[in-house]
């Protein structure tokens, strides 16, 4: 009986599953050539936002660093030429970051966002210290109407 249950019934059943998938659309992708569209609220690599006139939104208030549960954010404040506060140093250690998005939520100036980029690998640890310049450059190029929608969202 045991032999019948484990071999004669189970084996064709298993092969049937394999056979079935031969005719289905595959769930895997040809990764480097095909990329996934992430969910709108996916939390990937951070970026820093700018004002429309090009100045940085970040004022180095330190709330992101305070809210960070992994203590991944380091910042040093400074003074711009016209006496305003700005982040002289702003670094995120991506190896420590757990992509919880608390920094985005804490930010009172709407300066830091978690983008959709999820591909970051490197062969040394130093390059995972993500600097302010990289974060400003990482800002996605949005289509104009999307930006308007974001602005409307900001108002409400």
């Amino acid at each position, binding site marked *: 009986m045991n032999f019948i249950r484990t071999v004669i019934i189970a084996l064709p059943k298993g092969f049937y599953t394999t056979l079935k998938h031969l005719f289905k659309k595959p769930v895997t992708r040809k990764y480097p050539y095909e990329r996934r569209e992430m969910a709108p609220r996916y939390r990937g690599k951070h970026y820093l936002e700018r004002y429309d006139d090009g100045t940085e939104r970040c*004022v*180095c*208030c*330190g*709330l992101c*660093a*305070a809210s960070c549960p992994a203590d991944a954010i380091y910042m*040093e*404040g*400074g*003074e711009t030429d*016209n*006496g*305003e*506060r700005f982040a002289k140093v702003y670094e995120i250690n991506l190896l420590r970051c757990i992509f919880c998005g608390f920094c985005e939520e804490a930010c*009172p*100036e709407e300066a830091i966002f978690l983008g959709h980029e999820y591909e970051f690998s490197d062969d040394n640890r130093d390059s995972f210290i993500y600097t302010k310049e990289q974060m400003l450059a990482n800002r996605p190029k949005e289509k104009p109407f999307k930006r308007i929608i974001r602005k409307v969202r900001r108002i409400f």
Partner: protein
Amino acid sequence: MSSADDNKVTLTIDGREVTVPRGMTVLEAAKSIGIEIPTFCWHPKLKPVGACRMCYVEIEKMPKLAVSCATEAMPGMVVHTDSDLVKQGRRAVLEFILLNHPLDCPTCDKGGECDLQDLTFAHGIDDSQFDFNKYRFIRDKKSTFDDYRLGPEIIRNQNRCILCYKCVRSNKEVFGEYDLGAFQRGNITEIDTGPGQQVDSIYSGNLVEICPVGALTNTDWRYNIRVWKTQKVNSICQYCADGCNLTLWKDRQKIYRATSRRNDAIDEGWICNRGRYGYQIANAEGRLTVPLIKRGERQENATWDEAIELIARRFKEIKDKKGGVCIGGLAYPGLDSASLYAFSKLFRTILNSNNVDFRIDYKMLPEEPGDLYTQITSRKFSIAGIENSDVVLVIGSNLINEHPITNLRVRKVVTQKGAKLYTLNPFATKSGDISTDEIIYRAGTVEALINGLCVSIVEQKLASDTVDASKLATRVEPNTVAQAAKISGVEADRIVGLAQALGEAKHITLITGELLSTSITRDAITAAIMNLALLCGMAENGQIGFLSKYANSKGAEKLGVMPLLSDSLIAEMKTLWGGYPEQKGLGADRMILSAKKEEIDALFVMGSDPMLCYPDGQFVREGIEKLDFLVVADLFETRTTQMADVVLPLSSIAEMSGDFVNLEGTVQHFDQAIKPLGQSMPGYDICNKIASALKEPLFESVARMQPDIMRLLLREENPEIQRELREVKTSVEQASGEYTVPLFVVDQAHHFAHLTERSKSLSAFCSEAHLELSPSMAEKLHAETGTLIRVESEVGKVILPVIISEHIDNDVAVVTRNFSANPVNDLQMRKQRVDYVRLTRVEEK
């Protein structure tokens, strides 16, 4: 009700009965039983003003809410601090304060420690019923906010100001500075400097600390870090001997600011700018981080092992050949007690030499132990005790510069408790503006003046009966008021008036300062002052404060970092160390003299800069040049390290823990804030390394050494004053020839010794040496502020820019000594009681 109860009132606060002294406010009564009432404008050390209305409480039978900070507690009052009406009132006040307050907490430096932020959060205010635009002060049209510099270090943002007036009030009430005011009225009221002034007084940093919001910020803290990222470290100020308690705010390896840690026995919550910005030397540029060894003409980087090996080899050579007497040691009295103790132990046990001293800025030192001055300085003095006095007598001290916080206590007792202040100085000082009589004597005649006072007290029959006053006339010279008046250049009736005030006083505090302690006639002046003290009965009713200068001068005295010690202290050391060198030691000045005569071959200087600070530039240069071997440990490159054979990097006070003994004799502990920079080491480790290389280590660990140090520091030596009048004969030096203007070399108000010029903020107040002149003197020279004047004495000359003083009104030249670019000690001569100079204008070509 008995009379004892007349001074007490009993009231009920939140259902609890409390009995408080009459005159206390409801707020203080509530605080005394642990009920917190929110406030903005109230401050424990200021008079109440009731500007913010935040401290509303409900008092039964009063028609409206009352401001508790300005309502006196009355018998039978029933107070509610937590009723609905009170909450409603406080909410309304907060809403009103927030009317024009910007919501820029993310950029505001006060964010995280702001009273307004905390209370708004506590009262749950999230919306306003006023929807019109906020009123904005904008000076600069380009900027969206109003940041405006009130002084070198203070930035004001008027939009954030909630008009508690604490800054203006403390400035006027406590510090006696009139450079800040509240102008205009209503919601356009503006805190600003007076016409043509700027806020640069020595107490100005307190205005920032006292501000409940971010309206006043200082440049060192501004925008650098958020308060919640820092750690607090308890520290003690490393400059003057007041010993104010500080909190250092640090993150990682950097200190970001220093604030006061209130200690009512000493500082009452106020600190001066030196203490507030002086921490910056720890993180300043140019710190020495590796040992340097002179090879040929250049000093080159070396390892600790090389440096210590060289020092040990040379010290051993000299010691074996000529004995320990040929090695001398100068320590900076602003070092911690452990370093000073290790320094003294290194010399006395390992090198077998008594040549240790810390008094590098004294002209001539006594050559016998147990001199009167050292006896008097070891007597007890208490800063808080000044408040018991009804007469304060300051002799030879520019108190506000030398001891800013002691000066505040004197100010307090004079302006708030009605005591009388008398100052006796060779030139007018800022502390004199509240004095009943500010007596200016001719330079170098203070004994004559004090003798005159003594004679006058006896003549007026006001002398204390604990002393036999009949012999006074035979023991002092001059022995009449008229003669004293003639010699000192003070009107006779002012001497008589002061004598009368002193004779009639119930409790006198006598304070003397640097102008006396560094003088070569120190003993004669001390004897004269002792006569005066005995005649006024100060030994019983009063206190005598011969204030020491540096943070740990008192500690150095107690630890015996001096060549000549009292027998009891030597006995103590023998029991601690099991031995004590036989030969008599040399004082700082004698060491340099011996070096000049090539009797001393090696000198170990720890932390001090005699080349800049010793009051005879030429003498000290010649002495140090003749040395065979000079070892200097210091924080920075100084004029002395430049001549050294071995330079050792010393850790700053922030980089170690230890203790200081302040001018009262209070031992105060400070904690380590940051790690020693580079390869620098605390003084005790350096001494231990040298000792280990020579013979044996001084200690296993610093903690093991601590009981020995404490035994010496806590040793009470309160020598009995002999109740006998002393002989004081005055010899008056006259200015001769072409050098006629008396010279006084003092510390600049914002600087202390040779270290503070490295502090960025303190240098923003003043960064170069100046010549301070009276307006009439400046007019004679046709000089204005900034005019270059050539100051020449018999031995040297210096060119300095002029500052026209607001206080000085006689013909003296006051120069500041803290700047290595202008070594003004070149003008001084160590044997001269008063240095005289000639002033000429530098003609521009």
